[in-house]
């Protein structure tokens, strides 16, 4: 390892220790804010794992998030906590595989609409089940999980999502996905099982999103389908990842942190119009920063490193 790598690793480790100790020196407000930040960092990064290389825009975030939350609502009091998380992982992966196999042959736009519909479908299924079978619409989540526990679990999940993302980027799967993103037909003729690669990645991404939902569920104490399957989450995650730039592993996090703070501020300050403002922010980002902050940063640094700019071939 080079000295800079060791320095980066040391800095990362020190930062992680500072973050891990946060519950001991931060008050309840900052802890709650830190939980929101971690939640959206993991969601946006997990979203970018799949949507970055494949360029499929998924609006199914809330479907997986809600399924995770409901797994806890149903099983949280019955089973041990690690087992609940394990079951949430399995359900998220299974659902992603079924959805992936049936939809990833769709073209981009159809996929967007399908995933949006999926979240609504799952929500309606849960409502139907609760109304007709269990005869309750809401559920109480009484599990022995403190805010500190939620924070530490999310922090561990954030470390895991970056580690997995880093490993994927260096694997054959990561290379396959870059080729698929460039040209799917070429990918097939290079011997890549395109469907398998996309479904695998979709499932990995969905597992992280499901786990965030499961970990966050105890924070509410009471959940019902409209809380767990809130479509705003799907859109917020897309905006964050696009602001940061989904083509880089750390891009979505760059977008998630300022936007979580902004949304937090907006919903506290302008509770009735915050959705409208979020919509305007979305438009501004798509028009002004189509490649996200990381794309802008790369362009600027490239311009600095090669003064005579060759005419770029646009494709």
């Amino acid at each position, binding site marked *: 390892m080079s000295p800079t790598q060791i320095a980066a690793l040391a800095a990362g480790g020190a930062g992680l220790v500072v973050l891990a100790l946060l519950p001991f020196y931060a008050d309840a407000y900052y802890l709650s804010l830190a939980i929101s930040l971690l939640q959206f960092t993991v969601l946006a990064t997990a979203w970018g794992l799949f949507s970055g290389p494949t360029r499929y825009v998924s609006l199914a975030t809330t479907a997986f998030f809600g399924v995770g939350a409901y797994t806890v609502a149903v099983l949280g009091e019955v089973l041990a906590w690690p087992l609940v998380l394990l079951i949430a992982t399995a359900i998220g992966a299974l659902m992603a595989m079924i959805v992936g196999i049936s939809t990833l042959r769709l073209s981009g736009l159809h996929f967007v609409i399908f995933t949006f519909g999926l979240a609504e479908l799952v929500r309606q299924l849960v409502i139907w089940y609760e109304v007709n079978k269990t005869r309750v619409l809401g559920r109480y989540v009484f599990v022995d999980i403190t805010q500190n526990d939620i924070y530490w679990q999310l922090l561990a999940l954030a470390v895991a999502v970056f580690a997995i993302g880093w490993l994927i980027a260096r694997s054959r799967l990561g290379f396959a996905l*870059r*080729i698929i993103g460039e040209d799917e037909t070429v990918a097939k003729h290079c*011997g890549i*099982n395109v469907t398998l690669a996309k479904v695998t990645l979709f499932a990995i991404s969905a597992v992280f999103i499901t786990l965030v939902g499961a970990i966050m569920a105890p924070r509410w104490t009471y959940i019902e389908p409209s809380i767990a399957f809130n479509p705003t989450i799907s859109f917020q995650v897309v905006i964050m990842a696009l602001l940061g730039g989904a083509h880089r592993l750390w891009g979505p996090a760059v977008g998630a942190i300022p936007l979580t703070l902004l949304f937090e501020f907006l919903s506290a300050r302008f509770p009735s119009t915050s959705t409208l403002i979020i919509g305007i922010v979305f438009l501004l980002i798509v028009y002004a920063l189509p490649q996200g902050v990381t794309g802008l940063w790369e362009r600027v640094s490239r311009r600095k490193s090669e003064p005579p700019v060759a005419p*770029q071939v646009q*494709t």
Partner: protein
Amino acid sequence: MTAASSAPVLEVSGLTRAFGGLVAVNAVDLAVQPGQIVGLLGPNGSGKTTALNLISGVLRPDSGSVRFAGQAIAGMPAHRIARLGLARTFQLVRVLNGMSCAENVKAGLAFHSPPLSRGEVDDSVDRLLRRVGLADRAGVPASGLTYIDCKRLELARALALKPRLLLLDEWLAGLNPSELLIGIELIRSLKDEGLSILLVEHVMDAIRSLCDRCVVMNSGRRIAEGRPDEVLADPAVIEAYLGVSTDA
């Protein structure tokens, strides 16, 4: 040569595919013997590219059989056909613009089964880039290449699959006369290494100098088959290309 390798590398019979009412490929037969270059000719819209797409797995045939190295591959997904050693290039050249030349070639090397070791991949990238004349371009982004260099890169990626059969879809189209000579030499040298090639081509000089046999298609049907000089003199072929003379 062993008995097994003297059987045709590619044997297509009764290949048919319709799009709605249009039968794009209609009961086509063709065979490529080991080490042969076979030309697939015909006017525009006669179904040549569709035939290549059916053979390489982009499209599924409605009926007919495709045997590659003795194995039935009709209807198999494209990635499995590629892994069996059937590589192709595209009529409209397709390189991965966001990647370097070395990565473009690596794309063809990375998904062999069983997988190659990292060292083998690196050696092969160098060897293949040298093979097509792009040795000094390894780090250059593919988006910065000239047209002929894109074609070379696409060929290197196809060769990276270690193919037993190469499908070239108008690989020589759009090259200027001096590039054409280089291109023809490159294809001939592949044949000399024992590769079997099926090429769709309009460049007559290339067809005459490269092809062992030719199959001519028109409106989806095979209308002639034989040595290049024979088929190009065939009245049915001349009629397909130039139309019927009416003042006779």
